[in-house]
């Protein structure tokens, strides 16, 4: 990640995009929609409380990149003689196609809808993810020569297997929205299943909603439902939560965005029944709850009625595989989920693989992509007669970043800027059309500040004890008291007698072998190291050095490729 952040800092947006595309395939899409599992891990948060806006920086690179066609992998004109069928055109299948086409596989995608993208198209609203952005990145993959068949739901896996594909990948997602079986549920047509309703909106079958809307559930689907309602005529929109704040499934930023748009989030209300009179939905009855401190046990205080013209159920998704026959050697558990190997993504029938939401239930796009990469490795192995368990290993490289005395190949200064705030389209303009993208993206100054917040965590301090003369220069210069020269000891005790106490127990501390002159150890607590390189600059003997760590992630047909190939262009 720091790699592409540095490229953005240098204005090399196309290079940054390509580095990013290698692993995540959809930088422009994810730069707008990612669940950001990486941001809590970002070490910047340990210093000033807010991680680098990694996700939104991806979008900057994607929006400003130039032509990439010449940088994409070459697609062989000849087939390698192997045929692979992918079911569903969501991000997981598209990633498999992206990895296999350059190897000469004939790839056929069967898609139920008349357009590609899966939930990215049918459920993520266009005010978060413009259609153009989706078309662009999905198109890049389909243009690799993928045979995609629209309006082609697979209704029998047996049937497909009869066509003698060399491998089949199931990327059909978790297509079924959960029901809420309460009195009155079937007495009206104004109660909608969230993901189906969003799909109808996306495909233009629904273009309005009543003024008073209740959304049941407070996950990310609920956020998309309430904000879409706001754009289709909803005025009084309430998202109904059973539990108090802090226990919601929705990401904090999605909640913020919804509340900014005037959506009410109502806590501690459990749905009791739908009130329908003469086939007309009047509203819903709820039990008001009081929770204990951990929000584990609740007590009903009273009951309330809330009026509504429409109710949208957004309480989760389920998998459903009615089209997979149960006598094909594919094992299912008692909840109807397939048995899928965590490493190979293969089902119990060799040659049939699962990935994305279809494998273990609903997750997110970045996981679907990661599954796709791994499944592609397995499919490649399977087709080449190599055991699927025989997986290429991750590699790594460590390269010094020293360019001269007090000169580094990276920008080593620390920028004290706070995390930049994403600008939004004004509220007055935002609702005029369903597809007005709300987030404006970072402007150039914000981008410049945000990239400099990155602490270059891939550039590691590397120590060679035999060179150290124990002059203390590194210990004295370190701005964040990472370093100590002291007698070695048992870790938990050692942590207490460092230049600053090492309180983050999740961060291992480094202790060198005995130093030549006194036999003490050089100890480093990495916790808040800002990788400024001053320890290495002030070291007279180069006992400390700043070295760039490259993780070489293998992809199908390209063991140990990964970011390294782009690294050289950065250093050049």
């Amino acid at each position, binding site marked *: 990640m720091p790699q592409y952040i540095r490229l953005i800092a240098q204005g090399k947006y196309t290079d940054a995009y390509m580095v990013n595309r290698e692993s995540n395939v959809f930088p422009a899409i994810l730069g707008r929609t990612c669940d950001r599992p990486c941001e809590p891990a970002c070490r910047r948060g340990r210093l000033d409380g807010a991680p680098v806006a990694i996700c939104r920086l991806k979008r900057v690179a994607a929006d400003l990149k130039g032509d990439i066609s010449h940088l994409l992998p070459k697609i062989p004109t000849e087939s390698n003689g192997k045929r692979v069928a992918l079911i569903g055109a969501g991000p997981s299948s598209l990633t498999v196609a992206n990895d296999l086409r350059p190897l000469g596989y004939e790839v056929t995608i069967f898609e139920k809808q008349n357009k590609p993208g899966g939930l990215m198209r049918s459920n993520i609203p266009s005010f978060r993810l413009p259609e153009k952005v989706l078309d662009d990145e999905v198109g890049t993959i389909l243009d690799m020569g993928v045979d995609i068949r629209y309006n082609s739901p697979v209704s029998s896996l047996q049937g497909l297997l009869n066509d003698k594909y060399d491998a089949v990948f199931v990327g059909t997602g978790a297509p079924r929205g959960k029901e809420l079986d309460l009195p009155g549920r079937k007495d009206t047509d104004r109660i909608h299943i969230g993901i189906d309703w969003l799909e109808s909106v996306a495909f233009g079958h629904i273009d309005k909603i009543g003024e008073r809307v209740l959304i049941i559930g407070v996950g990310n689907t609920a956020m998309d439902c309430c904000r879409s309602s706001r754009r289709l005529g909803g005025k009084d929109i309430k998202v109904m939560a059973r539990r108090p704040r802090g226990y919601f499934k929705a990401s904090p930023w999605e909640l913020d965005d919804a509340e900014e748009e005037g959506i009410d989030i109502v806590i501690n209300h459990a749905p009791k029944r739908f009130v329908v009179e003469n086939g007309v939905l009047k509203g819903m009855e709820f039990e008001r709850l009081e929770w204990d401190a951990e929000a584990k046990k609740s007590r009903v205080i009273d009951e309330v009625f809330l009026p509504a013209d429409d109710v949208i159920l957004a309480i989760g998704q389920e998998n459903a595989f009615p089209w997979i026959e149960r006598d094909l050697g594919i094992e299912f558990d008692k909840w109807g989920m397939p048995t899928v190997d965590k490493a190979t993504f293969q089902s119990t029938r060799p040659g049939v693989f699962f990935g994305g939401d279809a494998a273990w239930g609903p997750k997110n796009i970045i996981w679907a992509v990661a599954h796709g990469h791994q499944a592609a490795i397995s499919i490649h192995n399977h087709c080449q007669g190599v055991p699927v368990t025989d997986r290429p290993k991750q590699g790594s490289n460590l390269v010094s970043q020293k360019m001269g005395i007090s000169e580094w190949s990276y920008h080593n200064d620390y920028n004290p800027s706070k995390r930049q705030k994403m600008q939004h389209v004004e509220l007055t303009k935002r609702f005029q059309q369903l597809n007005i993208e709300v987030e404006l993206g970072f402007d150039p100054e914000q981008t410049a500040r945000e990239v400099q917040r990155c602490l270059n965590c891939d550039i590691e301090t590397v120590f060679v004890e035999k060179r150290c003369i124990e002059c*203390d220069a590194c210990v004295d210069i370190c*701005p964040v008291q990472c370093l100590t020269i002291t007698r070695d000891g048992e870790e938990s005790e050692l942590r207490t007698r460092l230049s600053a106490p090492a309180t983050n127990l999740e961060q291992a501390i480094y202790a060198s072998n005995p130093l030549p002159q006194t036999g003490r150890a050089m100890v480093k607590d990495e916790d808040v190291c800002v990788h400024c390189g001053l320890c290495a600059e*002030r070291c007279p*003997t180069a006992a400390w050095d700043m070295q760039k760590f490259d993780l070489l992630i293998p992809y199908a047909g390209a063991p140990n490729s990964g970011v390294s190939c782009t690294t050289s262009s950065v250093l050049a």
Partner: protein
Amino acid sequence: MPSIAKPIATHPTLQRNALGLTIRDYEGSMSTLCAGCGHDSITAAIIRALWELDTQPHMVAKLSGIGCSSKTPTYFLSGAHGFNSAHGRMPAIVTGAGAADRDLLYIGVSGDGDSLSIGLGQMCHAIRRNIRMAYILENNGVYGLTKGQFSASSDIGSKSKRGEPNRMAPIDPVRLALSLGATFIARSFSGDKEQLVPILKAAFTHRGFALVDVVSPCVTFNDHEGSTKSYKHTRKNTLRATQADWVPPQSEILAQISKSGTTSVAMHDGSVVHFSTVPKDYDPTDRRKVAAYLDDQPANAVVTGLLYIDPNAPDMHELGQSSPTPLRDLAYEKLCPGSAELERMQEEFR
């Protein structure tokens, strides 16, 4: 010169002293010395000592002469007063400044060249007058700034970088100060902050001239095999004569008492210097015993510790019976009573 200034990022648990300042508030600008120079480590020790003493930055004056060592006052306490004098002349400036403002803490930083060659006479007279100052002699056995010539503290036989041995006898600032009647004499090593920081704290509270001779290796010109001022040689030959701890006024002495005996010396401001380790029969307030002890140690030993202390000797102001009010606070008419008064005084001598 480092590529960047020290980042303002700090450790989340960074502590504050009684004034609400962090140790970072006691820093100066970035050092331009060679990476690994002992002088930088002494700078870090000074920063720590001042922070731990809750020193108010504007109540400190830092003064120096010429040399790499003399550059270092720029690298600590940017909020203090400062004066960079001519080569070897720092003591004269401190004497004048001290006369005008007796309330400031004077920190003089010098080198072995600055102090023991061109400035030797100046240093001797500052000792003689018992000027109230901490005199930190950053001793590397060479003229670092002028590229490594032997200095007057270089030991006989110590080799230059090119391999030539020094033939002239060294001047030992500790012995010199002892013989001149200095009232606080210590030696330490830049690579031993555990010892150096408490010594500096004691020196900063001493009411008189406090000499702290600190062996401070010059990594560029005098850290090779054959040098007697290298990191390695110093570590190998250090003989820690005393371990002193500075204990603030009104606090209990909790330091461990070791087998080799213990002794405490009350300082003028009510603080106490507590010696947790001293050799048998060693009395840090008895000049002759200290001299005898030094005579008994092997020739190559680098004897360190707070070696001699006399907290009660009169300083320059007491000797000269100068105004208890700092001159800077006296009204102009009092400081300069006019030509009639001058006339009258001169008349007295006619």
